[in-house]
């Protein structure tokens, strides 16, 4: 199989998951698209990379790093600032509507979590990764993953007091 075909296949397999991961960090569909696009282009230029069965983990790590770079960037801070001060009223109205949909409310609560517990929650519950896989991906001890999961769940419980969500209360 030619390199070009391999690359096409790679994109076909991994794009969706990388896009979801980028969204968990950036909370913005357009930015998530741009980040995944950058990841693939960077990967395409790294011709020295050889597949040793770690392709998925490698691409996920690249995506996470790009997302974290973005979160530290001035562009992101500017967007956050504008969001905070210019769309406050609009958000309140939207929140009221979203409350009618428990699932949307849960999504919103997850995305509002601080980054570290959010990472643990989304990888464990949404991407169905094991504690060990999360620990390897984030390069942290398994114990740390567990404590972040615990903290994430506690924060979600506070956020979602009036909702009974089986994963959180019985997981």
């Amino acid at each position, binding site marked *: 199989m030619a390199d070009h075909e391999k690359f096409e296949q790679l994109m076909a397999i991994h794009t969706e998951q990388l896009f979801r991961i980028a969204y968990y960090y950036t909370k913005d569909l357009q930015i998530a698209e741009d980040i995944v696009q950058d990841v693939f*282009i960077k990967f395409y230029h790294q011709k020295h990379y050889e597949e040793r069965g770690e392709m998925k983990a490698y691409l996920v790590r690249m995506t996470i790093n790009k997302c974290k770079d973005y979160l530290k960037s001035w562009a992101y801070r500017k967007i956050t600032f504008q969001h905070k001060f210019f769309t406050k009223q609009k958000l309140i109205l939207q929140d009221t509507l979203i409350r009618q949909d428990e*699932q949307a409310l849960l999504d919103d609560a997850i995305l509002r979590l601080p980054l570290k517990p959010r990472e643990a929650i989304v990888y464990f519950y949404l991407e169905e990764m094991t504690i060990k896989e999360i620990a390897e991906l984030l390069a942290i001890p398994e114990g740390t993953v567990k404590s972040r999961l615990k903290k994430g769940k506690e924060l979600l419980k506070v956020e979602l007091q009036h909702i009974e969500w089986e994963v959180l209360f019985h997981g």
Partner: protein
Amino acid sequence: MDKHTMQVLQDVSAHKEAIIHKVRQQIQHEPVMAKSKWIYRVVTMMITCSILLFIAWQAAKPMDELVTQDEGEPPTFTKFFQTEVEGKDTAYSNFLPLANYLSQAKHIQYYAPLQGLEAMQSVATSLEDVVHLTDPENLPFQPNIQEVYAVSAQMEDGSKQTQFQFSFKEKSSTGVDLQFINFTVTNVKYNPLASYVKSKNMEETLGMNVSNIGLNFMNPLYYREMLPERGYLYIYYNYDEADKRIYQMATRANEFYSYYNGYVYHIGYQLDGDPQEVQEKMAILARDFILGE
């Protein structure tokens, strides 16, 4: 437990298509991009190398550094100046205390001056690129005396210093210097101008008029005009043939002062004619003497 998927991420096929489409587009442009990046890299490398070469060149040929190299010390002057004579003190400028650097001198040795243009040229040649002797025809007056002096001394810091005075004079029959130009060059261990800051207050208080007319784009050339009502001394070497001794002639003069490549240049002149015209000619001669341009 069922897998939870965020509502907004339940169908991401449109995003997936968009991403793949954009990546394909980018990759199609990749050869052009790679070529331009390569050009940028080459240009950046060239600029970096040029800057490094310039810095290396500057480091190899210091123009105005604080500490000069020992190569500023001329070692072969005794080949020409073989007759040691009596003497006392050293020549300096009264207006610039900086020029008084030789006052620290110990164990000063004086030599009988060498007469004639040929002797001057020989000494100038031995100093290599330090001095560039002016053809007497280019001088603004007709000298009847052309001589070169040498005075060497041990400095307080242990360095050895030699001072050469290239003199063109119109001497009267009674021995008075009617007109003169003295080009004095002294090797120094430190640049005395490095810490020199022209003080406007000092100039106003003392009535001095010191201006920097510039030796080249990096180094200053200070000029002080002789003022008839002010008695700032200009001291240069003269020779008493009868007593076989060097003495200091104290007078007033227009003065140039500069530092270049480990040497202090002090040029004093007293000439007839329009002061402005003479000053302009002398500025050219001073630069020529130092830089050889």
